[in-house]
Every structure is written in structure tokens, then in C-alpha cells.
């Protein structure tokens, strides 16, 4: 029987065979656990699409559109050595406030969560450790929930949590996350994180791939520090050298991220770093290849 993962890969193969070959080569060796998790989430995504009178072809087309954008951004990045965006206001107007772009970009990212092995490693690191660090907690917050994958897993894995909050700056993202997660256990907030919750604190905070979307990531980390309980833990991820249509802040290496986390008053408990291509660290640095950085952090 054909799984949804296979259906997606077959459709990519038909429309962009070269990209398909690269994906398959990168995913080689990931076994049943990977397939089960990918199929479970993609089935939820497919159900969401069907409830909205769309098919998985829509998701695949969005994904392929997104990778075309990425190629353009990558050329600009290699030519100029910087991301094409420098201002949050510009990105907000051009991307977050543009439902058409946001829609294909967000749907594209849904598929990327399991089609890109570095993204799979990111969720795997979260799943493998979340119970250890969120144990005993009651209040959980996700900032920038995007496609809903992390909140979906948190709701499934953390039976001790009494309150799940998700805050995002984009209505398109919230709609997508809400539609895929499809549960009434989560509270959704359409807000800029800097305007969110002045007094309440959380036992666990997840913030995946958000730091690179702001001009001053240190301010955002300081805000997380305010929102996190004294003994709380935060799961944070951000990419290095990863140009995208909505990325603003460029981290050149993991040292810059670690230094900023320390500057914001955090201590790294454990981290995972994955190069997005099957190449050596030396080659990754030479070619400025995107690198996924993820860490569990706590207050110093």
C-alpha cells in the first residue's frame, strides 16, 4: 500500500526529478521510525487539506514553489554574503502580510519538515528529550508555531501539561497550525511576541526557526528569558547560513548563536548541529551551506 510520504515523493519525482534524487539520497538510511512519524504528520496534513477542498498536489506545488524561491535567495546570498532582507517592516509588508506568499511558503515548510533530513533531525532531537525537560511542568508555550508540527508532538507527548499556548505573528501560520493540529487543547494567539504576556511565565517554551526572522534576536531571547520560569527549559532552533524570503538575521556559525544565548542569560544544556547536505564541516563552511542548530537551554 502506498503511503502519503511515497505519494508526495512520487509527485515531486514527476515534477522535479533532480530534486527528488537529492531528497532520496539524503533520506537514505532513515528507517521505519522516520517513515512512521512522517506518515503520521503528513496524514494529518492531508486530512486538513481535504477538509479545505484541496489535495496533496497543492502541498507539493507549494513546496516546489518554495524551493524555487530558496534558489533565488541562495544566489543572492552567495553573491552578496548577506540575506536579502534587513528590515522586519519590509518582510512584514512583503511576506507576512501577503496571504498568497505566506500560504505557499508555509505549506512548503510543512513538507520540508520530513523531506529534509536536517529538519527531521530537529524534530527527532525534540521528541527524544522533551519529556525529560518538560517533566512536571504545567504551562507550555510555543512561539512562531508555523506548521504546527512541534505543538502537535508536544500535545501528544506531554500529558502533564495543563495549558498549551501558541503565539504567532501571522494569521496564515496560525490557521495552518490550528487546522493541522485539529484539537481544542491549544490556545492560539495572533500577536507579536514582544506584545505578549507581560506577567505570565511558562515551564517550557519552544521556539523553532524564529530568531533569524527578527532584526535583533538578542531582544527576543531576553523576552523569552522573561517568559520562562526560574527552573524552566526552552527548546530553541535557528539556522546558520540559510537564506529564505523571510530571513533577516544571519548567523555565520554556531559560536555566534552560543554567545548570544549566553548574553541573554541562558545556559546550554545540550545541543544538536546538523549540516543540511551530506558534506564535511569544512565544505559546509566553504560553500556557506545551511546548518541546523538546536539546543535545550535554561536560565543561568
Amino acid at each position, binding site marked *: 500500500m502506498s503511503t502519503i510520504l511515497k505519494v508526495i515523493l512520487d509527485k515531486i519525482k514527476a515534477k522535479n526529478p533532480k530534486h527528488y534524487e537529492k531528497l532520496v539520497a539524503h533520506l537514505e538510511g532513515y528507517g521505519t521510525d522516520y517513515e512512521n512519524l512522517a506518515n503520521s504528520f503528513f496524514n494529518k496534513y492531508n486530512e486538513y487539506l481535504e477538509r479545505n477542498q484541496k489535495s496533496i498536489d497543492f502541498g507539493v506545488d507549494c513546496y516546489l514553489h518554495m524551493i524555487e524561491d530558496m*534558489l*533565488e535567495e*541562495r*544566489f543572492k546570498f*552567495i553573491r552578496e554574503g548577506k540575506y536579502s532582507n534587513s528590515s522586519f517592516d519590509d518582510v512584514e509588508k512583503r511576506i507576512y502580510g501577503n496571504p498568497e506568499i505566506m500560504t505557499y511558503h508555509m505549506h512548503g515548510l510543512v513538507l520540508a519538515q520530513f523531506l529534509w533530513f536536517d529538519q527531521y533531525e530537529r524534530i527527532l532531537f525534540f521528541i527524544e528529550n522533551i519529556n525529560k525537560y518538560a517533566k512536571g511542568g504545567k504551562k507550555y508555550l510555543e512561539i512562531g508555531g508555523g506548521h504546527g508540527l512541534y505543538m502537535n508532538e508536544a500535545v501528544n507527548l506531554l500529558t502533564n501539561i495543563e495549558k498549551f499556548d501558541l503565539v504567532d505573528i501571522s494569521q496564515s501560520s496560525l490557521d495552518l497550525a490550528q487546522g493541522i493540529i485539529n484539537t481544542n487543547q491549544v490556545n492560539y494567539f495572533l500577536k507579536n511576541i514582544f506584545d505578549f504576556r507581560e506577567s505570565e511565565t511558562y515551564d517550557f517554551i519552544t521556539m523553532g526557526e524564529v530568531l533569524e526572522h527578527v532584526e535583533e534576536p538578542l531582544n527576543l531571547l531576553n523576552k523569552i528569558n522573561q517568559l520562562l520560569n526560574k527552573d524552566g527549559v526552552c527548546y530553541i532552533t535557528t539556522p546558520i547560513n540559510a537564506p529564505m524570503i523571510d530571513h533577516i538575521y544571519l548567523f555565520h556559525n554556531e559560536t555566534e548563536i552560543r554567545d548570544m544565548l549566553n548574553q541573554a542569560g541562558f545556559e546550554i544544556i545540550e545541543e544538536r548541529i546538523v549540516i543540511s*547536505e551530506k558534506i564535511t564541516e569544512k565544505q559546509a563552511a566553504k*560553500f556557506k*551551506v545551511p546548518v541546523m542548530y538546536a539546543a535545550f537551554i535554561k536560565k543561568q
Partner: protein
Amino acid sequence: MEREQILKDINAIFIDILDNEDIVLTNETTAADVDGWDSLTHIQLVVAFENHFGIRFTTMEIQGWENVGAIVACISSKC
């Protein structure tokens, strides 16, 4: 600029970017013939050509190249 000279220059760029002294390009060479010439290094190569020759390619041009000869012809039309 002479096509022969362009071919020589881009051969040197290939050697530098792919870190392989043994590369010998001809007009018929394709990505399948050169170890390490993939979608990742292609971007680096293209930007290195642009910088070396002082030109800029469009996405359409880059996507239309089938072999080294097509790259040489494209560069030749711009210099």
C-alpha cells in the same frame, strides 16, 4: 572574448571551487562527468564565473545550460 580562453578560465574556476586539480573540461562536459559538480557547488561556480568575468546571469540562463559549451557560449555573449 575568445571561447577557448573562456573555457580555460572556467576550468581554473572549477579546479579552485571543487578542489580538484584533475578537472579537464570540454564543451561537451556535463555535471554527470565531474565529481562534486552538483546543485550545491553549481551556485558557487556560477557566482565565481560572474565575479571573474564581471557579468551577471539570469535564472533563465542558468537553468538552460546543458553542458560546459552552453556556459561558455553564454559568457561569450556577455563579454
